[in-house]
């Protein structure tokens, strides 16, 4: 249970063929690209990877491809959140069987679970595996359903394999409540921001983040983490402002525009599955204009 997550970890998007079928060879390419360009960990398939638009068989096949491609160069976590709790448990068992390093699960979807129901869910998941796991908090997307500090305290007490929180409230108060509680109970606790809002989270005890922009501008993302860790705040602000500008482009109907932007960086990954739209040619050109304006076309790798 020595796993400590930190730095900027990447979550590969899910490449698709034009008929929307899973493109596993390109998934391996994206995954390898992230590992080569500085990812400190890989997690698949997040919502960004269209997790909820895939079948169980596809999620398992993708997980195996990602684990195989990373080949222990960095830790791999499998995101097991599903509408049905039974599917979540099944995916977690599968991740363990295939030698993943960690799993991640969000609070249950749709049902507005009570704090006790959230607790019971995480206990059921956490005790069903030996792997370490991250609890994923995203009140903004789940109509206010959230992991409070009281709930987190009970979870940490009960579940020795709970190693951290993926925190996607992006809110000073909420992040700090979880961070000060988590770190007081467990000094190695990994508070991980949902996407790369590192500047406001690292000084609150955050250890790193996931990433929205790593498939577009890995150098910028790595530089943001480095400057935050080195307390070079002016530089960190410069990087964070740019990444925020990108996030404003990608955030709506994520990851449609991100996939569109990847085309412009010479790393095409195909369409986005409905109900999410696929970025049009015009949208792709708009994104290219933004990337040029920010100097990203010149400072970041093109192609694989």
């Amino acid at each position, binding site marked *: 249970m020595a796993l400590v997550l930190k730095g900027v970890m990447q979550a590969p998007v899910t490449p698709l063929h034009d008929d929307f079928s899973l493109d596993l060879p390109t998934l391996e390419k994206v995954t390898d690209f992230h590992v080569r360009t500085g990812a400190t960990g890989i997690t698949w398939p997040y919502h960004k990877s269209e997790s909820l638009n895939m079948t169980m068989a596809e999620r398992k096949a993708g997980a195996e491809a990602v684990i195989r491609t990373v080949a222990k160069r960095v830790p791999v976590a499998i995101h097991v959140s599903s509408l049905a709790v039974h599917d979540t448990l099944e995916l977690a068992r599968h991740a363990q069987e295939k030698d993943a390093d960690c799993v991640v699960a969000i609070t249950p979807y749709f049902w507005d679970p009570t704090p006790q129901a959230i607790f019971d869910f995480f206990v059921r998941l956490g005790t069903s595996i030996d792997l370490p796991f991250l609890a994923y908090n995203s009140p903004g997307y789940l109509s206010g359903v959230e992991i409070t500090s009281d709930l987190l305290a009970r979870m940490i007490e009960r579940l020795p394999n709970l190693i951290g929180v993926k925190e996607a409230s992006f*809110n000073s108060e909420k992040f700090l*409540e979880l961070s000060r509680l988590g770190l007081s109970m467990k000094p190695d606790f990994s508070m991980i921001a949902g996407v790369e809002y590192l500047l406001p989270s690292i*000084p*609150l005890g955050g250890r790193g983040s996931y990433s929205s922009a790593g498939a577009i501008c890995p150098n910028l993302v790595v530089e943001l983490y480095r400057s935050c860790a080195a*307390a070079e705040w002016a530089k960190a*602000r410069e990087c964070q*402002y740019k990444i*925020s*500008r990108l996030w404003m482009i990608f*955030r709506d109907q994520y990851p449609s525009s991100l996939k569109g932007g990847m085309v412009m960086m010479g790393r095409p990954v195909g369409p986005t599955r409905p109900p999410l739209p696929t970025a049009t040619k015009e949208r792709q050109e708009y994104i290219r204009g933004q990337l040029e304006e920010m100097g990203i076309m010149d400072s970041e790798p093109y192609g694989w």
Partner: protein
Amino acid sequence: MTTFKPGLVHAPVTPFKRDEQIDFSTYGKLIEFHLANGAESLAVPMHAGESVSLTDEERIKLIKYAIKHVKGRVPLIAHVSQSGTGVAADLAKQAAKLGAAAIVATTPYYWTPPANMLLEHFTQIGAATKLPFFVYNSPDEMGGVKISADTVLKLIDRLDNLAGIVDASLDWQFMIEVVSTAQRKRADFQLLTGAEYMISAGATGATGMIAPMAGIAPRAVKKLWDLCAQEKYEEARPIQEAIAALRQAVKPLGVAGLKAGITLMERKGGNMRAPLENPPLAARKKLAADLNAIAALRDEPRGW
């Protein structure tokens, strides 16, 4: 356009007598206490000062009293939020005549305004005076109504005196978006945090903080402010955590908790005005125990 920088802004409570009338002599003592304990500006009367429960006439009387009492030792920011645009604009004009240094206003109460209505509301309030004007984003208090970055950019076009935004959403996505895009249009545009979460705000570029908690714990607030002003964010974390604990202790009681906390520090917060109620003894005892448990608050000043 003036480059007025509010810095560390204290937001005094408004003490009431038993008959719910403003207790001006206690108010004068509170102002004196804030000035002696780190206030670089005062904001009067914020929601923490029960602005919403005062008549318009009383608000102006209070601002007049505060300005007379302060005698130019620090600048005074007049809070003029109202449901009606004309009423708010008129309060702003009167405050300017009395010698306020700046105006702050939040979204209109009750009306659930769409963006174009907010734009018009703020344009008219801002245009009512030549003073630096700050808009105040506080979705949790305002039924979810948010000021978007786009509205701020349009206000910059319309108002030469738009000086900045006070943010109480604590939402990193918004804070970074608004400060980075607004400063591209107006370089001296300021972000102030509307609550004592200065680390994340400061790191992302905030240059001011409105601090109602300074009524209870001015030394802790000042220490947090000073460390953040020097960008010593890691060093500021323990005091930030103590202030977060203080906020969490006060929060269930709201403004009544703030006033009760001031009284527990052997000063006088005064009575509440209807519809808010004085907290029952059990709640005050719980608050006293919670405050006692925060070690960092033990060297806060007691009494006046």
